[in-house]
């Protein structure tokens, strides 16, 4: 069966056809559509409060012998890094694949970190698909490898691979592998990572990686285009597609499984060409490993480390052309929607001259005119704690202006710990945390979260109460207000809280207009 599918859709189809029993994730562009699609196809999928929870739930499922999938964007793997590193040691009896959707060029992210580094750092094998077909084929291969070695597999996608649509042959459609029955077998030596067992596990891990390299050398996951002997290009992922267009005459070594590398096959390829160049987006990941193996290859110039590659840039890269690239006319930047409930909130913060410690979500757009009302944004959950640090060190008159602003989903993701920090290590001036509760995970396309009262597939669920959480932790005040309907009252309340030495939470509650429209369409309002 052939169809037109994005990389994310192809992954979802492959997960279903490979018999994945549970998919867990936290929404994040460009990964968000995978679990939604998997669920629509009939797979069992859930949004966890954050990526660490998602990966751990997937690990638990894989401990019972079934196949499990965890999905996240690149920065999400930072949050899930703790379980990721240790599950590399212990492994799981059921196949476990972790999807990291990287965002070179930062279409919708705060950095362009290259998560291929995580594969080496943790000792986890990695696949890098170059189009939707490879998303489908490699995910199936990743589960086979995971089963064979009881090792987690990192599946590294990028924005273009996730969102580009190509023709996919869904070869196992209609004949999916049967899901395995879950069962638990006691095996503390494998599954309990106390030092005595972890020492053995680490040695096993390194031996497994050596065996996986041998498998990769056999050629199932790399391909060679035999072109001119004057120039050979080693590449992976979406860069491969650009290379084919930019230099159809050259020889190409295209790697699908980029850790552990098929280094001897690469050595042979490099020896057969006069000039051997590495073309890769982001960090010099392939280059460093290939050079470390004593193979003389040429790296891309530093200018091409930034942003996405494309055909024009790859042509320049090959030619060693370092003339500045045309900047192009700036597009219209995104902004808070007309009617967005965050608008009035940011008008008040601006008018009161607050120092605003911001967070990750639509509301980060409060940094744009006419609001100009966000002063810092680091990572998920950082608004609360960064604001506390400012409160601790600023002189009192300045400290009193500091407000932390965080969305409902982001608060549940990693903001709760910040509230614990606030009441435990109280700043002398207290603090004010504003939870912008628009009742949805809006930025990534309106996904459900633990406070919406609906599961990933929009069926009813227990709704976590933000008020009860912060009251239970022990804040001095917790108010709930609609800042659009009661703007003046909100401004007065905020002034009062800022003037006191209390640790206060104000929940600005009003539903996202996009989510309301979407829910109305689905008949969920």
């Amino acid at each position: 069966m052939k169809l037109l599918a994005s990389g994310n859709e192809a992954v979802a189809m492959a997960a279903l056809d490979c018999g994945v029993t549970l998919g867990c994730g936290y929404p994040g562009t460009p990964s968000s559509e995978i679990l939604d699609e998997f669920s629509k196809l009939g797979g069992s999928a859930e949004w966890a409060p954050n990526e660490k929870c998602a990966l751990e739930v997937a690990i638990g499922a894989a401990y019972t012998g079934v196949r499990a999938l965890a999905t996240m964007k690149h920065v999400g793997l930072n949050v899930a890094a703790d379980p990721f590193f240790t599950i590399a040691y212990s492994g799981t009896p059921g196949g476990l694949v972790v999807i990291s959707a990287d965002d070179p060029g930062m279409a919708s992210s705060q950095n362009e970190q290259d998560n291929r580094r995580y594969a080496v750092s943790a000792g986890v094998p990695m696949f890098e698909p170059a189009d939707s077909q490879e998303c489908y084929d490699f995910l199936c291969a990743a589960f086979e490898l995971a089963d064979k070695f009881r090792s987690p597999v990192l599946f590294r996608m990028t924005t273009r691979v996730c969102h580009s649509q190509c023709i996919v042959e869904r070869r196992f459609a209609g004949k999916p592998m049967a899901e395995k029955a879950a069962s638990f077998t006691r095996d503390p030596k494998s599954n309990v990572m106390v030092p005595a067992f972890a020492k053995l596990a680490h040695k096993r891990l390194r031996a497994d990686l050596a065996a996986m390299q041998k498998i990769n050398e056999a050629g199932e996951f790399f391909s060679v285009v035999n072109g001119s002997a004057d120039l050979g290009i080693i590449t992976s992922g979406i860069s491969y597609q650009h290379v084919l267009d930019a230099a159809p005459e050259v020889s190409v070594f295209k790697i699908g499984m980029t850790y552990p590398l098929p280094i001897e096959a690469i050595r042979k390829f490099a020896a057969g060409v006069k000039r051997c160049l590495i073309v890769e987006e982001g960090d010099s990941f392939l280059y460093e490993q290939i050079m470390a193996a004593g193979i003389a290859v040429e790296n891309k110039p530093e200018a091409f480390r930034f942003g996405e590659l494309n055909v024009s840039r790859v042509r320049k890269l090959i030619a060693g052309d370092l003339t500045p690239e045309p900047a192009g006319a700036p597009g219209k930047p995104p902004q808070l929607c007309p009617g967005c409930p965050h608008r009035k909130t940011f008008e008040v913060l601006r008018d009161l001259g607050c120092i605003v410690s911001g967070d990750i979500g639509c509301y980060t757009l409060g940094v744009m005119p006419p609001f100009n009302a966000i002063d810092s944004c680091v990572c998920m959950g950082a608004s609360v704690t960064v604001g506390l640090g400012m409160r601790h060190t600023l002189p009192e008159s300045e400290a009193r202006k500091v407000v932390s602003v965080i969305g409902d989903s982001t608060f549940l993701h990693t903001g709760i710990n910040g509230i614990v920090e606030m009441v435990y290590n109280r700043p002398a001036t207290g603090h004010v945390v504003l939870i912008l509760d628009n009742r949805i995970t809006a930025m990534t396309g309106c996904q459900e979260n633990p406070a919406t009262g609906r599961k990933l597939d929009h069926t009813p669920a227990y709704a976590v109460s933000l008020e009860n959480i912060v009251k239970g932790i022990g804040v001095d005040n917790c108010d709930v207000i609609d800042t659009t309907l009661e703007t003046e009252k909100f401004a007065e309340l905020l002034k009062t809280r800022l003037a006191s030495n209390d640790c206060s939470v104000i929940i600005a509650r009003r539903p996202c207009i996009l989510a309301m429209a979407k829910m109305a369409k689905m008949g969920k309002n």
Partner: protein
Amino acid sequence: MSKVTNIIAAGLGGQGVLKITDILADVIFRAGLDVKKSEVHGMSQRGGSVSSEVRFGDKVNSPMVPAGEGDILVVLDISQLEVARPVLKADGILITPEDVPTDKLSNPKALNVMLLGALSAKLPEFPEELFIAALQKAFPEKLHEANEAMFKLGRNQ
């Protein structure tokens, strides 16, 4: 290398830019050619610039149209013309709202469908029936009649 045709649609979030390329890619797929479609999602739903690209031919590699190699550019909002123009080749075809009878739009939201009609006229290798079928598949039934009328107004300029 076989010839690849490059088509770009550009506009603002909410204008249905991606719908145009979705339908076009579906038409090309049904016609049996290789096709790739690319765009960047994410913050575009907040009213920012949106552009989407379709490449087709016997074999397509990169999903992204190289600068200056676009064969046809469809612009939904004139403010995006200068942003998107560098992608179009010197003798490329430009289609803007000025090329279609926007005064006859049944609903401002249907501009994308009317422009799709204008685009379809520049791609004679794909029959009109394929476009109509892909168009109907992309929208709920209650819009089918109006959409077909808007498509034809755009196509028969």
